[in-house]
């Protein structure tokens, strides 16, 4: 497969009607964030913390926008209350494109600690979770984005180091 993964992800987001993206950076997501910033069909609003970003997304959705948040899995530790008391309580659809740090291939030991909590927290919160490990897993993204709008829930797309290495 010769396609560029970051381009593919942003193209799929635009095709799904996503027009408002907030980001807190991660090295693995740098290519996607760069393309989001350059895309003129997406308003990119960088946020300083992920719960702030989810507030922006909630407002955008109520204004008729189709938001998405791009963040690291460490953010799951920051946003539990916001996911529960804002996004889930009011039933706002919110796709979360998440870099899944701390999996095999991770150079930073501390990232492993939060990686171990990531899936259990998402499961505890009944958040539909999808794990992109191989490059071809990206083919599921359009269906996941449609599913998120259909069920009006936050959904987690975990993208690990192997996925990005294959890119």
């Amino acid at each position, binding site marked *: 497969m010769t396609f560029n993964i970051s381009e593919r992800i942003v193209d799929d987001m635009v095709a799904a009607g996503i027009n408002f993206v907030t980001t807190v950076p991660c090295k693995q997501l740098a290519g996607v964030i760069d393309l989001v910033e350059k895309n003129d069909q997406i308003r990119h609003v960088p946020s*300083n913390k992920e719960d702030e970003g989810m507030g922006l997304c909630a407002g955008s959705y*109520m204004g*008729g926008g189709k938001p998405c948040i791009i963040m690291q899995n460490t953010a799951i530790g920051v946003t539990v209350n916001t996911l529960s008391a*804002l996004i889930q309580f009011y039933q706002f659809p919110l796709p979360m494109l998440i870099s899944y740090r701390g999996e095999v291939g991770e150079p930073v030991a501390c990232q492993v600690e939060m990686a171990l909590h990531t899936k259990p927290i998402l499961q505890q919160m009944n958040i539909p979770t999808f794990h992109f490990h191989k490059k071809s897993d990206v083919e599921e993204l359009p269906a996941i984005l449609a599913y998120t709008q259909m069920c009006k829930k936050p959904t987690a797309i975990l993208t690990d180091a192997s996925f990005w290495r294959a890119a």
Partner: protein
Amino acid sequence: MIRNEVLKSIVPVITDELVICNIGSPSQELFSLDDQPSNFYMLGTMGLCSSIGLGLALSQREKVIAIDGDGSVLTNLGTLPTIANNVADNFILLIIDNGSYGSTGDQPTYAGMKTSLAAVAEACGCDHVVECQAEDTAEELKKALAADQMTIIVCKCQSGNVKVPVITMNPVVIGDRFMKEVQKRNA
């Protein structure tokens, strides 16, 4: 003046505007004074009122007033640089600054001590920041609405709450009713 008196004084000004209202006493007091489909009440997530308001203002044409508090803004201080750098001229952030965490028993906040939220907003790069006394809030709000530019108003008032019931309206109903109103006004 306490918050409830400030809200009473601005009801005639905000009744036709899209309002995002801060969690706890502010939402409960506004709900009791002047419930409208154009009001969105926060039932959880302390701090995110200004973020929800900015996201809404950036995504549609109508004017948006976020009625926030000093404690809430301090909880989400990162919101001010985001607001400053993503200008929405249909957005007004009204911070009702009573120097206390009103909903939790009036514990003092740093905004009532050495920290000036107006000075913080200016330092973050917000262009139109107004600090006013409680009794001038309605007038400042009218001016900001007429000016068609993003404005942060810090209203200095007394600490204190009135006894009003909690909001029992279903959150999905609050959101759905509000979104239909937003759609109607943008049609």
